[in-house]
């Protein structure tokens, strides 16, 4: 049927550094050398932490966790571009960005070993929200935080992360719609790593790109090579400018790949081929960034060796701190139900402590 066009949209793709580390000179953001080196350092550290956590987990010294290997070029440049008043609202695969933002290396260790202590920031002014396990919930939080920044007269933006799988949740949709209606200063990063546990991107949604989901809310968007830290740097800066200037939210699809298992409880062999993984490893973000640095004369094998030794030692220290005996109380749960005092919780705490004494320090017997 013949029709009159009333609206038109285009989705663009952005890449600055190709998989061999060749830079598009026109697009190169020309970051100062020390920033480039800093970026690489964070990426190496995040990678190293993953590898160590995987070992600890396999040795029974850590609980289940979701590795962030392959995603370093997404959250790290984003966190580096953010200002101190900006809010960092992660899902659960942004370990790198969290570290940049100021979370101690011990935090993920405590967190993934089952201690709320991993959520406690050295300073709440870091403005990092805790991991949001229930997929999608964090998007409305981010819209609310972004609204609040403006309400409080701060020149700050909120950056929120979600996975390709997460885009299917109603909260993703509702949160973006609120942010757009409010013209809230928010950037949403869809970290499209091709998989949501075993569900491939193609079975998650029939849309050609993840970026175009923003069209539903009248939000501008771009698709970025998420293995390319420079493209992410360019995109996040443009997005933050857009958000801060009062034009409302911006959405970035970062196309990357989950190189490891979903969590350490998962076995990707059940649902994807080694050939696919191998191919993805060739495009991973660190190789190309290192080639870029080398091309600029900033890097060589010696420096790489030294850096690796350095981050290993940094992680070692964190693991030692994490594994040092702690004397955390067992009954903290009673302290944090409410911010007000209620008699039934005193009673139940006494009951709890009596039961712990009876059952002894040992694992209670649940049959």
């Amino acid at each position: 049927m013949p029709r009159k066009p009333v609206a038109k949209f285009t989705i663009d793709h952005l890449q600055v550094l190709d998989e061999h580390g060749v830079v598009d000179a026109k697009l190169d953001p020309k970051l100062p050398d020390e920033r480039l080196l800093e970026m690489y350092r964070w990426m190496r550290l995040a990678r190293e932490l993953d590898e160590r956590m995987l070992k600890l987990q396999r040795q029974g010294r850590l609980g289940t966790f979701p590795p962030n290997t392959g995603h370093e070029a997404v959250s790290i440049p984003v966190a580096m571009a953010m200002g101190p008043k900006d809010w960092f609202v992660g899902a659960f695969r942004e370990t790198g960005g969290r570290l940049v933002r100021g979370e101690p290396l011990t935090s993920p260790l405590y967190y993934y070993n089952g201690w709320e202590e991993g959520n406690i920031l050295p300073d709440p002014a870091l403005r990092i929200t805790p991991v949001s396990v229930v997929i999608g919930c964090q998007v409305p939080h981010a819209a609310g935080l972004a609204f609040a920044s403006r309400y409080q007269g701060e020149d700050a933006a909120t950056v929120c992360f979600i996975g390709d799988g997460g885009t299917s949740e109603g909260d993703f949709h509702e949160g973006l719609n609120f942010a757009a209606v409010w013209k809230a200063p928010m950037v949403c990063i869809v970290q499209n790593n091709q998989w949501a546990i075993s569900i491939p991107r193609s079975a998650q949604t029939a849309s050609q790109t993840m970026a175009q989901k923003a069209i539903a809310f009248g939000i501008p968007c771009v698709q970025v090579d998420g293995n390319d830290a420079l493209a992410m740097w360019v995109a996040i800066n443009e997005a933050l400018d857009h958000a801060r200037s009062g034009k409302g939210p911006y959405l970035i699809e970062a196309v990357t790949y989950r190189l490891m298992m979903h969590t350490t409880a998962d076995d990707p062999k059940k649902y994807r081929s080694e050939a696919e993984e191998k191919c993805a490893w060739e495009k991973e973000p660190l190789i190309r960034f290192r080639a870029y640095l080398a091309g600029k004369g900033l890097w060589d094998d010696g420096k790489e060796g030294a850096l690796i030794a350095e981050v290993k030692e940094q992680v070692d220290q964190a693991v030692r701190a994490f594994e040092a005996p702690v004397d955390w109380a067992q009954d903290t749960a009673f302290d944090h139900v409410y911010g007000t005092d209620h008699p039934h919780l005193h009673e139940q705490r006494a009951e709890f402590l009596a039961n712990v004494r009876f059952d002894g320090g040992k694992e209670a017997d649940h049959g």
Partner: protein
Amino acid sequence: MAKLTMVQAINLALTEEMERDPGVLVLGEDVAQDGGVFRLTDGLLEKFGPGRVLDTPLAESAILGTSIGMAMAGLRPVCEMQFCGFSYLMMGQFEAHATRMRARTHGQVTLPLVIRMPYGGGVRALEHHSESREVLWAHLPGAKVVLPSGPRNARALLAAAIRDPDPVVFMEPKHSYRAFREEVPDEPEVLPIGKAQVVQSGTDVTLVSWGAMMRPTLKAAAEITGKRGVSIEVIDLLSIAPLDAQAITDSVRKTGRCVVVQEAPRSFGPSSEITALINDKAFLYLEAPVARVTGYDVVTPYFGREKHYIPSAGRVARALETTLDF
């Protein structure tokens, strides 16, 4: 002192709290321009402007979800669910975040927010507009659930809820919105959350209720007092989470008999918890089983049949007599 309806009293509390604290803001569907579908938020937009009184898009999960974000940043959002029948769409946000943020961060991040919602039957409304499901919130650790029963306590409890450091589900008995007026003091009043009120003291039987059911409860108490010359203690719980165990225990230890009145379906309802509490704390004082006057365990019928499904003063009176005669 002014004689206000509950709608007016709640509006007064919102106005007073917004005047007191610039971090308090109101959001929800139709709350601004329209003044709410019950006209409860009427005038707030004019007084405080569109930056603090927000008409939101139609999405309950995001209404709570964005409120959580605002509260994390230190604001005190008061959000509205247009009817409690639509609040289950935000149960995910409530369970996963509203009730847990404090525990998750050992108190570093707290969520001072209020979720207002009209609840209960008796207003000839469409499906989903008549339920009483307070227990769904009350069972979740970290939740506070407040249910005022009249204009004066509604105003004082809402002020408390807004000032409270934790998320509060504030359930407003819509049947009582305009059903009667009460003297409300000129000065702001604040009632403590988690404390019941002994509305009438007595020695022969304890009658416990909250919210909309306080009216048939008090009516039945008057009727049976008149008819049998007994002395009835009436407790208005005001909040069911935290539950004021002390007030209930003290009373039942004194009277030895108890009738609990709830609008919700019987099974797994609030009165079951109250009965269990009495079993724990006053077992040896009981001279009769605790009687529960409740909604039935049926899907709430449409309003054509509603009238017989809501506990009536007559049902409460009969339960009182049975309990007294046991």
